[in-house]
């Protein structure tokens, strides 16, 4: 049991960290809706994996990468209406996921295999999945370091970067690809419907706490890891569902960050009034 818990803790830290980091980039590049669609495509893939007897993680990765590629091409070809196409993929993916669950032999949503896909599970982490997570982390960090100037240029101003000859589409595609793979690997812990709590709550909290881009990246990935780790420990201690607990912890952190920002803003204004 201790070995399973250690694996889960490690996976939680890595998933939270990666989700927080990729969430920062998709938010700054304004492709949040696109990544939302990729996440749902991963859920559809995992659900199909269930009825076709594939490992849900691998089928989720295949679906996530395919949708990232489709969205990447759409991003290149369409100047307007990308968000709407993205929403169409989101609804189609959700429909596929729900159909797949309905078509599977088990009709109870708490059944172990479906529970992993929908709500996440502490027991779902294996050594193999952990190694893949580590590899993805290494690849992601290498990508960010290798293309630091390119990515910084896009974070500053995407249109200007494109006008200067930067391959914006390729980097958007790469970011969606990483988002897809990271989401596919993370939903074992959080569940397909709650993975967004790790993807967007940490960056939203980081935005409340600092204005500096690199601090936002650092805080987003750190808060992601803290949310996942705390959620896991609390869920283990209180026997709560792991995905929902992680989502509640990350939402609480976001709320605290918002309250902290409001309090410091009020203090700053009071100080200004007294000057």
């Amino acid at each position: 049991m201790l070995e399973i818990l250690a694996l889960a803790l490690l996976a939680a830290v890595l998933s939270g960290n990666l989700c927080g980091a990729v969430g920062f980039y998709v938010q700054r590049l304004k492709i949040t809706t696109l990544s939302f669609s990729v996440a749902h495509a991963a859920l559809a893939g995992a659900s199909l994996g269930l009825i076709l007897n594939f490992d849900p993680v691998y089928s989720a990765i295949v679906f996530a990468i395919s949708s990232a590629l489709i969205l990447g091409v759409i991003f290149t070809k369409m100047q307007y209406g990308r968000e709407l196409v993205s929403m169409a993929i989101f609804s189609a993916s959700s429909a596929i996921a729900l159909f797949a669950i309905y078509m599977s032999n088990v009709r109870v949503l708490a059944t172990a295999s479906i529970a992993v896909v929908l709500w996440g599970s502490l027991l779902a982490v294996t050594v193999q999945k952990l190694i893949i997570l580590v590899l993805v982390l290494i690849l992601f960090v290498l990508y960010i370091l290798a293309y630091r100037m390119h990515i910084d240029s896009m974070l500053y101003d995407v249109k200007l970067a494109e006008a200067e000859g930067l391959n914006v589409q390729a980097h958007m595609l790469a970011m969606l690809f990483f988002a897809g793979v990271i989401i596919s690997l993370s939903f074992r812990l959080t569940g397909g419907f709650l993975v967004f709590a790790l993807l967007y709550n940490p960056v939203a909290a980081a935005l409340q706490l600092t204005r500096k881009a690199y601090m936002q990246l650092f805080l987003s990935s750190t808060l992601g890891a803290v949310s996942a780790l705390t959620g896991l420990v609390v869920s283990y201690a209180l026997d709560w569902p792991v995905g929902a607990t992680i989502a509640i912890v990350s939402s609480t952190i976001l709320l605290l960050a918002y309250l902290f920002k409001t309090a410091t803003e009020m203090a700053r204004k009071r100080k200004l009034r007294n000057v």
Partner: protein
Amino acid sequence: MPPLENDIVNLEGVWVAYSGSDRPAMRNINLRVSAGKLTLITGPNGAGKTTLLETCLGLLKPYRGRAYLFGVDTRSWRIREARKMCSFVPQDFIKPPFEAYTVRRIIQLGFAPYKSIFESLTEKENERIQWVSELLGIEDLLDRPIGTLSGGQQQRVVIARALSRKPRALFLDEPFSSLDREGRKLVSKVVSEYVRKKDAAAIIVSHDVNPIIKYADTIVRMDNGKIISGDCYA
């Protein structure tokens, strides 16, 4: 007209429309800009000036006609290579107060498209950034976050970024909009000298023609998506 060797921009019967709009933003535009020329595009709001500039760079694609930048069709994937020879100053350049990138970093990022993986700036490139910053009077701002600067200072920064890249073509969209009188005179002079010395081309969109008109080789007037006067073959 047949394409010429030193054509930097060549638009042939170009029509452009924005997605969802039932009327074209630009109609049957013919324009040729060659090296060593400064072209001023003017006209009222909504005339299609920015659309024209973005079409030249391939950021907007024509639904009828052909647009070429350095002889490359803007629909081609090779357009990125042509864009690397260009610099752009967008109309909406002002960043919010919380934008923390420093002025130096923002100018450095203009070199990003020339850099391969893990490559950083050379000594020579950093020296050029320093030189251009001094030329535009922003050398004291290099380590300041962009969000803390005024609109005029931010505009000088994007112009410095554009010039640092040593472009063969400059595309400037309302580059005087936030500048004071002295700033307008300085930028006009620096840009026109750059065009002459480097045999580059500049296409400047401005509804205010005063600061630049004396340096312009060609003045193109637009209204309602059409060129209404001016020599389209500069």
